[in-house]
């Protein structure tokens, strides 16, 4: 856990590039721009200019074929995609920030509490067994079988982990870390086992799922993630103080009067729910959870009052922009979201790290 030192050290230095308020304001502005672009650009070439026509058609109840197409693209394809993308980006970035704060390790991400590997295992099980053993179940859930299974798999894996580690009454972070690695390896092995037994088409489906995509965005999915978005929004303000306390160390946080154990449990559960929901609707989208919180810390320092909202806004922005490129670069075909994100995000991050020397000394 010595890796936490640079973050804390930087907090004492107070070295930062921008004022927290400016950063949050800029991030919010960037998100607005990204959202505007995301809803007005797409492979069909339909733009927001069609929106008044669509709204008029809805109001009057008269649809010709052209407006029906515009309505479908703007309101039923791009808008849910925008909302889902923003949720996924915000949830993953905030979860990453919380994990790094709790584990006091700049490399921590939600994978450490088993949620991603559990979701992946459940997803491949659904893909591979959906036509055989689990046929009746997947039939009953239809197209929502995979997202539902991924969510349950992710959250239940974390729950089992927390129950096992917290059995002694205290949720030790280092035990959680090691147990999380073990659970991740176990899920990975089971995933490998099932993928060995699946045919090439199922493997291709799994590979694509692992690279993430927002192409299946729909209103039912937006409604399904809405409670999780509310959960994050409600839980975050209460966690800021605990996370800032944990930055100094668990004992120090305890002496500050923070119920450390309770805070850790809440952080883990909120992360599991948020990441589980994000993975369920978009597959595995890496990179956001690590990079965005670091970017914020680089620019505005480690105070979670800035890191959490900043991560949410900038994470959503990054996912929306990456998704825009994903659907435009090879149109009418689509690139996997995770690929685009790492392709554009990694060089930018690398540049910032080298220039600022994060984590170095």
């Amino acid at each position, binding site marked *: 856990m010595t890796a936490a030192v640079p973050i804390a050290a930087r907090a004492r230095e107070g070295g930062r590039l921008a004022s927290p308020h400016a950063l949050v304001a800029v991030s919010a502005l960037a998100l607005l721009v990204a959202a505007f672009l995301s809803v007005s650009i*797409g492979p069909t*070439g339909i733009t927001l200019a069609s929106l008044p026509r669509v709204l008029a058609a809805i109001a009057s109840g008269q649809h010709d074929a052209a407006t029906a197409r515009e309505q479908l693209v703007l309101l039923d394809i791009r808008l849910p995609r925008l909302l889902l993308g923003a949720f996924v980006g915000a949830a993953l970035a905030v979860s990453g920030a919380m994990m790094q704060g709790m584990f006091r390790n700049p490399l921590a991400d939600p994978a450490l509490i088993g949620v991603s590997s559990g979701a992946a295992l459940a997803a491949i099980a659904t893909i591979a067994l959906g036509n055989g053993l689990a046929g009746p179940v997947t039939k009953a859930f239809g197209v929502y079988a*995979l997202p539902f299974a991924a969510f349950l798999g992710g959250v239940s894996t974390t729950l089992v982990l927390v129950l096992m580690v917290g059995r002694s009454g205290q949720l030790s972070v280092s035990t959680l870390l090691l147990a999380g690695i073990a659970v991740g390896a176990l899920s990975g092995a089971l995933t490998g086992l099932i993928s060995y037994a699946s045919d090439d088409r199922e493997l291709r489906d799994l590979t694509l799922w692992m690279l993430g995509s927002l*192409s299946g965005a*729909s209103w039912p999915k937006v409604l399904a993630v809405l409670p999780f978005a509310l959960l994050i929004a409600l839980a975050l303000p209460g966690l800021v103080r605990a996370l800032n306390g944990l930055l100094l160390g668990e004992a120090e946080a305890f002496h500050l009067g923070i119920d450390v154990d309770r805070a850790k449990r809440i952080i883990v559960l909120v992360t599991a729910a948020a990441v589980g929901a994000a993975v369920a609707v978009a597959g595995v989208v890496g990179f956001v959870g690590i990079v965005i919180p670091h970017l914020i810390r680089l620019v505005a320092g480690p105070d979670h009052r800035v890191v959490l909202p900043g991560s949410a806004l900038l994470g959503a922005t990054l996912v929306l922009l990456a998704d825009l490129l994903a659907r435009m670069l090879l149109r*009418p*075909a689509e690139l996997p979201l995770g690929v685009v994100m790492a392709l554009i995000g990694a060089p930018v991050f690398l540049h910032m790290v080298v220039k600022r020397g994060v984590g170095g000394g």
Partner: protein
Amino acid sequence: MRIERLFRGVAAAFLCLLAAASQIIISAAADVTLTDAGGRTVQISDASRILSVGGDITEIIYALGADARLVGVDSTSQFPAKALKDKANVGYMRALSIEGVISVGATLILASERAGPPEVVKTLKTTSVPYVEIPDQYSPQGIAAKVRLVARAIGAEAEGEQVVRQVEADFKALADGVKRIKQPAKVLFVLAAQNGRATVGGQGTSAHAILELAGATNTAAAVAGFKPLTDEAIIELAPEVIITMRRSSGNDGHDTNQLLTMKGVQSTPAGAANRLVVMDGLYLLSFGPRAPRAALDLMRQIYPELGGEPAGSHTGATK
């Protein structure tokens, strides 16, 4: 005078009726209602701009001579090669994007039942553009059903029957050839050989189906799907002939050499007698209208003693 007016009136009424009737007949001819592979009833009123999702479907549309009406294909539409050059490419058939598909402006979507992802397919079925699911079964009946459904959907039934007749004639020729086989050969289909591991085609694969059609016994029938096998397992299977794929890039030397350096392959009957057949994978496994000819070519490669010239343009070579 009166009779003349009456006659004119009757004639005019008759003409009107005729015009109305022809109108009905014309619109009936333009409207096609069919039941697709998913059991949905689909009504098609305009087949002037077609999107094909599935290599076999694209192949059929070209065979029907309707490629001028094709506006988009998916990335599995590798034959004919000009399809991907001339038409918009909506990407891999199992990773479609809703807006991408809509953007090609098709009036009819013909998609393999294997297209995906499920959410996208579900949404596409709800749009005003008719979405027809085409069955994909690896059998002679499956190919005929596929051709007939595509032909009916695009209103080219006469051409469809022509293609079906050709397919059936090719299957007849294949059956005649298979009848002359005295002892079915034990054949192994190797999809790819990398790092000393061969991925073979087992039960339920298109490779298994084409081997059966060609009158051979698939030695890997105990395996389900395409699976990597070890050297030892290949010795155990003891194939008399090994079939491997030529890549579309035309560089088949690499895999073939890899295969021959494998100790397990060398000690099989096929390795000892150097019976390695290299064929165009696309031709062999796409299960479009060319399937019976591909099977016949394969049969002639496996049983050179039966003689005969290769049926299709894509021939393989026995090494």
